[in-house]
Structure formats: structure tokens, C-alpha cells
């Protein structure tokens, strides 16, 4: 184990997998000489050369499309879209092709590819550069979606994504890039898809989060412990496949649940999680499930207003208190 940032953990995962398998290549806007807009591809060009680490023109749809073609052509491409916001330009390739190629071609063609995309708000980048669009991808069958919350998961999930024979949308939180944590050095350290991380065990209430929301939930749990409330914090890790068994079992045991989502509340993924808990644990629930969500507005540019739109530790603490006070 060694302590490193989420960014360095992603970088290490890329390096290890590129060393392990010559079919792994990476490309995108500014990934080679510039080493990535968030420096996740640092050192890759120097180590692996321009055949495997390539800058591309500003053509998001074709970055995704070229990754699809390269995967069809026997590579295991890792494409970088500068942020999830620009993935909207690539949605036709991602939804109409990447997610459907295996199905429409009768299983003959499969796409062992990863599309990495930094995501999330909180850096005062305004409405078009701060979005949390994970639900858009989660709605569509045919792809895997990983969203690490910790440096260890950043490494382990990205390595699993690269080795997976399914197309993977890999979402990274921009604010987490500098977060630090212990990361196993073992080059065979993998975090499996479809297995939640129980970040903290507890008995009174289950908090379900993902990405930065899982990190905030853990901080809220520490606050709530001072009030004598024992929170179980569950990080989904992958949005598809979704390990509902773990959070359903937890919610059935604690009888109370709070779901934290960074995306907009309307039709957000938290609604799906809450619904699963209602559908499966209704008779075990002591109070209605509560959701903490992003506000249904375009992200404000103003720092003050932006803060109001993104779930916070205080907001999660408040939601848990309300769930604890409520009953049927």
C-alpha cells in the first residue's frame, strides 16, 4: 500500500494496464503532450510513444466512434473525453453504437473499450461544464458504468474496466482528483464490477451514494456519530451493473435509507435506487426513503449559488436526521 491521489491512482492503472497488454491504447483531446486536461495521462506519451498515446482533433463523436472501430479492430482503447459535458456530443456513438453493437451484431462483435470522462460540479465552471449526467448513461442497457469514490477504487475499477470485454463509461469526479488514500501496489489489484463498497458499517440508517457523494456521505456519517446515529455508508462503485443486493440487505436491516445523488432530482438515478428499496424492503422500512439531490436548475456560475445546488455534508446530515425522526 502507498498513499496517493485519485489522479495518480488512475494514472498508475493506465500505466500498469498498458504495460501488461500492448493492445491497450489511449487517445483523446490533449492526452499526449499536454498529458490530459486533468493530468491523468501524465508520463504515458514518454513511456509508450505516440503510437499508443495519441492526441485527437476536437471531435468528440469521432473520438468515441474511433474507439469503437479500434475495439472492433482488436485494440482495447481507452478514450478520454475532456469532460462528461462533451460526452453529449458523442451520445450518438455511445448510445446508438457502443451500447448496441454486440446486441445488433448477434454477439459476433464486442467492444472492449473504456471512455473516461471527468464529471461533476463544484469548481465554478458554470452551467455547461459542471453537469452530472450519469443517469443518462445508466438509463441505457449495453454498457458498464464505473464511478470511483476513492483512490484505491480509482485504480482497481479502471483496471477492471480496461480488462472487461464490455464497453465501459468510466466517470471520474473532478474534485476528487486531488483526494488521497491508500492504494495497493499490486499490479493485479482489481476491484470487481457490481459489488458495492460498504465504506462504513452502521445500524440505524443506510446512506447510499456514489462518486463524490459517497465521500460526502462518509463525512456526514462521522458528524452523525457524534449525535449517536449509526450510519451504514454504501458506495455503489458501479452504476451498471448495480449491486442492489448489498444496499437492499442493509436497508432491510436498518429500516431507514437516504440516497444521495449529484445529478438533477427529476428522474435522477436516486429515484431508481429509492424505488428498488421501496419495492423490496417496504415491510421492513421504519420511515420513507429520502433523497438528497442536485437542484433542478442549470448549474449557476456564482460560487454562492452553485453551493446551494450540489448535495453537501450538511444536507445529508439533515436528511438523515429527518429520516431518523420520521416514521410510518
Amino acid at each position, binding site marked *: 500500500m502507498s498513499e496517493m491521489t485519485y489522479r495518480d491512482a488512475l494514472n498508475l492503472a493506465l500505466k500498469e494496464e498498458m504495460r501488461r497488454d500492448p493492445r491497450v*491504447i489511449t487517445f483523446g483531446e490533449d492526452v499526449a503532450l499536454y498529458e490530459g486536461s486533468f493530468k491523468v495521462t501524465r508520463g504515458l506519451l514518454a513511456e509508450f510513444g505516440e*503510437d*499508443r498515446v*495519441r492526441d*485527437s*482533433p476536437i*471531435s468528440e*463523436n*469521432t473520438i*468515441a*466512434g*474511433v*474507439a*469503437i*472501430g*479500434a*475495439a*472492433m*479492430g*482488436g*485494440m482495447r*482503447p481507452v478514450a478520454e473525453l475532456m469532460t462528461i459535458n462533451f460526452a453529449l456530443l458523442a451520445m*450518438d*456513438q455511445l448510445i*446508438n*453504437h457502443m451500447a448496441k453493437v*454486440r*446486441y*445488433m*451484431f*448477434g*454477439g*459476433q*462483435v*464486442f467492444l472492449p473499450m473504456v471512455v473516461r470522462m471527468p464529471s461533476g460540479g463544484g469548481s465554478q465552471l458554470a452551467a455547461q461544464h459542471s453537469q452530472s449526467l450519469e443517469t443518462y448513461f445508466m438509463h441505457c*442497457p*449495453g454498457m*458498464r458504468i464505473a464511478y470511483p469514490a476513492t483512490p484505491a477504487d480509482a485504480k482497481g475499477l479502471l483496471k477492471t474496466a480496461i480488462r*472487461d*470485454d*464490455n464497453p465501459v463509461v468510466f466517470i471520474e469526479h473532478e474534485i476528487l482528483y486531488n483526494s488521497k488514500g491508500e492504494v495497493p501496489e499490486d499490479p493485479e489489484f482489481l476491484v470487481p464490477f*457490481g459489488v458495492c463498497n460498504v465504506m462504513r458499517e452502521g445500524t440505524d440508517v443506510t446512506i447510499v451514494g456514489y462518486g463524490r457523494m459517497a465521500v460526502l456521505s462518509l463525512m456526514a456519517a462521522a458528524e452523525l456519530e457524534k449525535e449517536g446515529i449509526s450510519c451504514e455508508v454504501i458506495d455503489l462503485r458501479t452504476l*451498471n*451493473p*448495480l*449491486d*442492489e*443486493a448489498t444496499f437492499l440487505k442493509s436497508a432491510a436491516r436498518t429500516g431507514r435509507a437516504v440516497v444521495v445523488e449529484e445529478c438533477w432530482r427529476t428522474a435522477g438515478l436516486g429515484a431508481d435506487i429509492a424505488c428498488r428499496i421501496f419495492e423490496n424492503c417496504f415491510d421492513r422500512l421504519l420511515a420513507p426513503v429520502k433523497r438528497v439531490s442536485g437542484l433542478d436548475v442549470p448549474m449557476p456560475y456564482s460560487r454562492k449559488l452553485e453551493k446551494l445546488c450540489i448535495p453537501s455534508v450538511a444536507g445529508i446530515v439533515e436528511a438523515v436526521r429527518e429520516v431518523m425522526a420520521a416514521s410510518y
Partner: protein
Amino acid sequence: MPQEILATFNVRRLSILDPDGNVDEALMPELPDAELRRMYEMMVLLRTYDNRALALQREGRLGTYPPSFGQEAAQIGSAFALKPTDWVFPSFREVGIHLTLGYPIAQLYQYWAGDERGQRGPDHLNIFPFCVSVGTHLPHAVGAALAARYRKDPVAVAVFFGDGATSKGDFHEAFNMAGALNAPVVFVCQNNQWAISIPVREQTAAATLAQKAFGYGFEGIQVDGNDVLAVYRGVKEALDRARDGGGPTFVECLTYRMADHTTADDAARYRPPEEVASWRERDPLLRLERFLARRGLWDEAYRNQVQEQVQQTVDAGVRAMEEIPPPERSDLFTYTAAAPTPRQAAQLEES
């Protein structure tokens, strides 16, 4: 300071065989008589396959079908230019390539009957499945070409599309990236002059589609798309260049869609009959017949023999297609991913 001319471009048009069957010997590609006859046989096969598809569709045995009538030379000429190791990304109106490469006819009909398992091509054919979404497979071809180059595999990738696709963003992005990264890809446009009801003159203000390539740093050439020899030569030269590291080329095959866009369309509502009639005189099959006859390679007896043989091949394909059992319920999720998600597994159980 006087103004300078920084760049000028010449758009070439290649034509070898005229409508009367006369050939420009200087440009005539080296093709043995047997190959010239096989080109003819494949064009007859395509037309017969096509007519049968229309009949099957009217009988409710196929779904919506896009006919190739009039575009046989553009398809067969391109297919003959390919090496077996090259890769093909077709759109949905190039079954002549499938037929020439030996793709099972039963599977082509199976697909158009609504069974996606028809897309699972024989392993020895480097042909990707149909792309029905207009122009969206151009980036895939660029990616596959880059992958081939990375693997040091000296092949070319050919991607086929229609004139309508040249208005898509994918066309721009894929052309630009192919040029910037020197991808071994050949873009082949069957400019049949109609994107459903939109004529090519309303699709673009450019005098030719071929000239668009120059803006991306590589050559575009227009070939007479109803001249199988010109198509063959134009596409072959482009493929050779791509294999030799010369980068991409755009080949515009100027042809004409003699039929409706699909069986769901009625082109008589928007196309002047004189225009259609004028192209009937430039029929690519008739042109090749005349040429072969001049060379002593074609007569009525040969034509009858080819038609009979092709009819039997197509009949056998239809019979084989109808013997394929429909997919099973369990196939619902089989191909969505390497393994089903827990929810998919549960949905299959419940369905």
C-alpha cells in the same frame, strides 16, 4: 503586397466504359476475361437478389428493404477492388459487396426479414454489419484503420455510404481525423443523387462531392458510378495507396438510384420521370453486356445460362432463409453484454 494563390485543386473524373460499351483502352484495368465475366455474373446476381427481395417484401416475408437497382456497377466494381484481407464497413445499400465476397444470401434475407442474427457474418469475411444510421459508421472505419496500422497489418479499410451522409457531422469529423492521422481508409460514396426525396443539389452547394476531400488534405476523385471498370480502377488505386501508407482517399461514384429509397417510399411523388428515363439509358448492366459482347464474351446463350444459374442461387438462398428457426426468448439478453446484469437476469426469468 500582391495576392498569392496558396493552393489549387483539380478534381478528376474517371470514366472508362461509355454507355455503348466502348472502352478507353489506355485506362482499361488489367482484368482477365474470366474476371470480366464474373463481374457481369455478380451484377446479374445482385439485380436478381434485389428483385426477389422486393417480391418477398410485398408478400410480407421481408421488412422494409432498400433496393440497389441502378447501382450495381458502383457496388460490384468496389467489391472486386478489395483484397480478401481488407476490411469493409458497409451502410445498408451495398449488398452487391456482400454477394461478391460470398456472404450467404440466406443471411442477407434473414437480416432484412428482421432477424439480427443475419448480421453474424462468416468468420473469414472481413465485413462489418450494415450501418443503417446514416454516416455514423465512418468514425468506426477510421478507428479500425488506425488499429490495423498499429497492428502493422498492411490492409486497407473501405467504408461505404451515400450522398446524404456527406451532410452529417460524422462525415466531417471522420474525414478530418483520417486525414490528420493518415489512416489507411478509403471512403466510397455511392452518390445516387437522392437522399430519400432530397436531391444532391439541395444537399450541398459543392459542384462535386469528391472535392470535399481536398479540404481535409487528401484527394477526392469522381468516377462514373455506372461504369464498373472505372469504379474498379478508382477504388483499387485508392486501396493500394492506403495499404502503401499513402493515407485516405475519397472516391465518389456518381450513379443513380433507379428504384425507391426503400419499399416504404414512392419516388414517383418527387422525381421527374424524364430524369429516371435518362438514367435507364445509362444502365450499368446493359453497358457491361455491350462491352462483353464486343469482346466476344457475351451472347444470348451465355446470358440465359447466367440468369438460370443466378435464379437457382437466389432460390436456394430464400429456401435456406425460411428454414432458419426464429430466435428464442432466451436470446433476448444473450448479446447485450458479456454477461447479463442482475436486473437483466431477473427480467429474463420474469418474461
